[in-house]
């Protein structure tokens, strides 16, 4: 990364910003989402609105249906209802087409291609915007989008390492960088800071806020402290239903939320407030 590169980019980006803001970017609208596993209803008629330019947290006790919601939105679990991306129905379309529509996700345990380097991982993620024929050749140049994503996530120094040897936090950041190079409009992150140190959490939270520009960032999280610090919008799920939704203050002061989640005992509250 040369100095001139860094200098020249902000102006170029500023030029492009008005062009690339999708006119009808209304985020992700979920209506009456229902997921059943046999007789068990994991997600029961959930309505969710994920606006662009927000970091929207999806929280709830274990088994509340958070991950199942994300699985349903990303096509991994069969669901009924409606999911609209910028007004277009996307529920039920195949996973790989969904990815091309701009919905990207990470998983609770990072699922990088561990035998490939960070660069190779990112190059594959960037590939959906290249022509099919580019698969025939070797990579001769590094896509500038990859360098930008590496800079955003602070991973430039590990570009040539096999993804399998990275630390847990670095793996999650590579996952996020992959979402950036695949130009996802909606980023669904499943517990991105689980197992991270305090500093790593802090850095990740700040990263999410930088990323939310023109994107919808949805985070499934257990860590209440992290949620309080970085959520711009929160939805609480409980037993497959939306229990409460709104700002952090509104949700945390909701007595129903305190009852099922935060206020289940003074211990839980104390635990949540402890600095990691």
């Amino acid at each position, binding site marked *: 990364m040369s100095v001139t590169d860094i200098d020249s980019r902000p102006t170029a980006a500023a030029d492009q*910003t008005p*062009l690339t803001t999708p006119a009808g970017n209304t985020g992700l609208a979920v209506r009456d989402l229902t997921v059943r596993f046999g007789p068990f209803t994991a997600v029961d008629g959930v309505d969710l609105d994920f606006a662009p330019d927000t970091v929207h947290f999806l929280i709830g006790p274990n088994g509340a249906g958070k991950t199942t919601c994300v699985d349903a939105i990303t096509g991994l679990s069969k669901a009924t209802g409606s999911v609209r991306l910028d007004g277009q129905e996307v529920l039920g379309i195949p996973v790989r087409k969904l990815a091309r529509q701009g919905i990207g996700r990470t998983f609770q345990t990072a699922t990088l291609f561990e035998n490939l380097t960070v660069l*190779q991982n990112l190059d594959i993620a960037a590939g959906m915007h290249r022509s099919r024929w580019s698969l025939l*050749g070797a990579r001769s*140049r590094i896509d500038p989008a990859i360098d930008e994503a590496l800079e955003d996530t602070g991973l430039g120094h590990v570009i040539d390492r096999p993804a399998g040897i990275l630390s847990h936090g670095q793996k999650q950041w590579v996952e996020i960088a992959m979402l950036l190079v*695949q130009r996802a409009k909606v980023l669904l992150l499943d517990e991105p800071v689980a197992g991270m140190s305090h500093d790593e959490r802090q850095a990740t939270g700040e990263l999410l806020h*930088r990323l939310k520009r023109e994107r919808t960032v949805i985070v499934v999280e257990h860590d209440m402290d992290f949620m309080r610090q970085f959520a711009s919008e929160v939805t609480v799920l409980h037993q497959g239903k939306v229990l409460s939704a709104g700002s952090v203050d509104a949700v945390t002061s909701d007595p129903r939320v305190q009852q099922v989640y935060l206020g289940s005992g003074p211990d839980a509250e104390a635990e949540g407030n402890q600095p990691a």
Partner: protein
Amino acid sequence: MSLTSTERGDPSAAGPDEARVGDAGRGRPAGPVPGVPRRGLAYGGMAVLAIALMVLVPMFFGTFQVNQIGRFVCLAIVAVGIGLAWGRGGMLTMGQGAFFGIGAYVMAMHMLLSDAALRGPDTLPSFMVLSGNGELPWFWEPFRSGTVTVLGIVLLPALVAGLLGFSLFKRKVKGAYFAILNQALVAAVAVLLIGQQDTLGGSNGLSGFQSFFGLSLADPLNQQFIYLLACGVLVAMVALAYWMMRSRFGELLVATRDGEERVRFLGYDPAGVKTIAYMAAAMMASIGGALFVPIVGIISPTSIGVAPSIAFVIGVAVGGRGSLFGPVLGALAVAWAESSLAQAFPSGWSYFQGLLLILVIVLLPGGVASLGQRFRRRRADSGNGSTPDPGTDPAEPAHVPAPKGTLT
């Protein structure tokens, strides 16, 4: 661990969907492709292989041994494809005999038809005179033409593998199930061939060839030419495999092997990726089979059945399935060991073969090709005392071989 906070425009929106067809002129140059040998090493290795097989072998061995080695070379061509499909793609192709058989029988039909045409018009291949009904079966007809034969050798297996592969991979059939289905395929092909006594010689197979594309097989010079042709094809297949491994397709193939679902979330169809690798492997097996026929002089169901299909895989496993030259060297070595050991202990070879496969899978999943790397790592371990950082050595192909301890 700090994340840069340079405020900047949205990188995901870098330009209004401009055509990102090639890399030309965009971004900084990429280094060598990780996980495959560098170009100099790979082409150097191919040159060494070519010189060893095409110059040294004919120089130091007699006609009979050269012919033997020619047979090994044909098996090595099959191995290159298995290395691609199994080592890089994780598809345990236990039924390559089926595709080997397609190539071999197509070539054999053409050679018998040419021989018959030399004896006179409307002459049937001699085995049909004894057992047939006096008419040439319909599926022999197209292979009178040399061009159709060559096309058939390349395209027929690709077609079969394409249809079979795509329908299996779409249904997410993988691992041991895929291997078993391949075995079933090859067993079915063998049974089918044995049943075709009148039209394909049944269990006797096809033999008694006199010419190969107009060259008399009785002439030792022509024999040598066919041997050199097989060697040339082998080197060309290694070059093709290298190109596929080095390309973005090759990286995507490894990614599909290690995380099929993840590939889907990146907008690719893993079934398509795997099918292409499977087709390439089938095509190479078919070409190996086609060259096998003029060199060995006979093709019968015993050369393409279940056991030979497993034998193909053993050579690849021993040499190192994920590496470029491992499958070739492994196939050559195992074939050589077979021909010399089977003479000494005719009944013991198959036990030895089975033992070899088990030992390699358990003790050395990366094959002999991974030995050097293991040794280097061990030396680095004992040298530093502390854990070495595999990322700092760009030459370290730590991430090359297939996952440990698994077959697929």
